[in-house]
């Protein structure tokens, strides 16, 4: 019995020690000028980007095995980081988790197939791509935010004066307090949630072929709204000043269009689905 227990402990010890030996950390530092460009290409693993306090790019990488290495290249004001998979690497052994600090005005491009992509407190352009990546972007202002995913969920929060474009096939997309001159979301079957006030004088276009679209807005929102679902239902909890003329048929229960609030500062809001349900909801005091 004691022998068996000892063997178990030894086996566990070997596994833990093996994992610790295989896992390694790497830190890289680069000095850059204003409006630098940083890209991180990581087939497997997460990337988290935050602002640094000065003009340096700091990359902290945790490599999960010796079957992957981190390549880097600085060309002037541009820094490229890439996980380089070696022979025999797979999604576990090829995994690298990055924490990257960049000047807040730098532009970033992140790519990961499966890990989470996270960017926050920046005001440079943000481009995030990954088929299965979970994308989280928050506290970004005066920047382009471009996201492309296949089925990973996308969460954008507190994006001010952004030029936002999200393309996703089936992941759920949530936009909270996102505004700017252009906010465009295209999905094949993903659900789209918008919670905010549609800003001032922007163009907001949310479309999902078969996913539901729900926009929750305060009553004082100023917007020119049109919603249409070819085969789904539309619901409107907020009284709109109906439009006298629209170029698409206003089939009851399938479409509505109208204005709310002050026309002079209203945004254009287009909600479109083929078979999904569209719901324009009034925000309650608690939300």
């Amino acid at each position, binding site marked *: 019995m004691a022998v068996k227990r000892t063997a178990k402990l030894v086996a566990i010890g070997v596994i833990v020690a093996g994992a610790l030996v295989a896992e390694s950390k790497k830190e890289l530092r680069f000095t850059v000028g204003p409006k630098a460009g940083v890209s991180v*290409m990581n087939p497997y693993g997460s990337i988290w980007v935050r602002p640094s306090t000065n003009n340096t790019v700091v990359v902290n990488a945790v490599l999960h095995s010796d079957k992957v290495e981190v390549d880097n290249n600085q060309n002037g004001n541009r820094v490229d980081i890439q996980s*380089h998979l070696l022979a025999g690497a797979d999604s576990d052994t090829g995994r690298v988790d990055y924490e990257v600090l960049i000047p807040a005005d730098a532009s970033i491009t992140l790519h990961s197939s499966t890990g989470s992509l996270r960017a926050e407190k920046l005001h440079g352009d943000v481009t995030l791509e990954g088929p299965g990546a979970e994308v989280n972007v928050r506290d970004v202002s005066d920047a382009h935010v471009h996201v492309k995913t296949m089925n990973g969920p996308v969460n954008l929060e507190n994006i001010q004066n952004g030029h936002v474009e999200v393309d996703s096939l089936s992941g759920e997309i949530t936009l909270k307090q996102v505004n700017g001159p252009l906010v465009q979301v295209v999905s094949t079957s993903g659900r789209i949630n918008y919670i905010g006030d549609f800003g001032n004088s922007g163009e907001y276009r949310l479309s999902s072929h*078969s996913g539901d679209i729900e926009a929750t807005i305060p009553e004082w929102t100023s917007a020119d709204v049109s919603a249409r679902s070819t085969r789904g239902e539309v619901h409107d909890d907020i009284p709109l000043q109906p439009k006298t003329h629209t170029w698409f048929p206003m089939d009851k229960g399938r479409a509505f269009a109208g204005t709310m609030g002050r026309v002079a500062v209203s945004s254009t809001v287009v909600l479109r689905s083929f078979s999904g349900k569209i719901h324009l909801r009034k925000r309650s005091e608690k939300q």
Partner: protein
Amino acid sequence: MNCVELQQSLAEVEDASTWQQRAHLRTCPACAALVRELDQIVAAAAELQGADEPSPRVWNSIEIALRKEGLIRPQSRRSPLSSFGLRWGRAGWLLPALALLLLTVGLYLRQQFYPAGLPQEASFSRQDSISQPRVAVANSGGLEDEDLMQEVAANAPSMRPQYEENLRRVNESIRDLQSAADESPNDQEARRALMDAYQQKSMLFDMAMEQSLP
């Protein structure tokens, strides 16, 4: 000019030579990359017309472009694109050809969706609206999809079910939207939605191709 306007303007001025286009491209890396890719596809397409199978020069030029973009690195063995071409033999050109076809259909629909003026829009005939997209849907739903799935299975087997499901959904959406566009040829929204669906499918192919790169 914003990203959407830039992409719309490419239907009129494809070489992005207007000052508005150039100004936007200077500040938007995503659009600049898009224009570069379009240029490369146009250059590669000219080569594809010359033979049933592209010459090694086409693969090389694509490889060089990808290397410049930092998407692949030099290797001592043969390039992944060459190996992809070799693995698929004479059918190896189908994938880039399909991507090109999707792009062409997208550009066609873009042009139809953003006509030069209302009179042109009014004269848009039902025959015009349905002929080309119908061919494209038939092509895009066939063997090429299966080829792509095999490529995903070889390079990212764990993600194959997800790709399969998303491909099925996007094909379904294209069929739905094609029917809607056929029923209402003057419905701009239907044509725009169809264009979006093709772009979603194109994006799926892009992602699958990236999975196959080192």
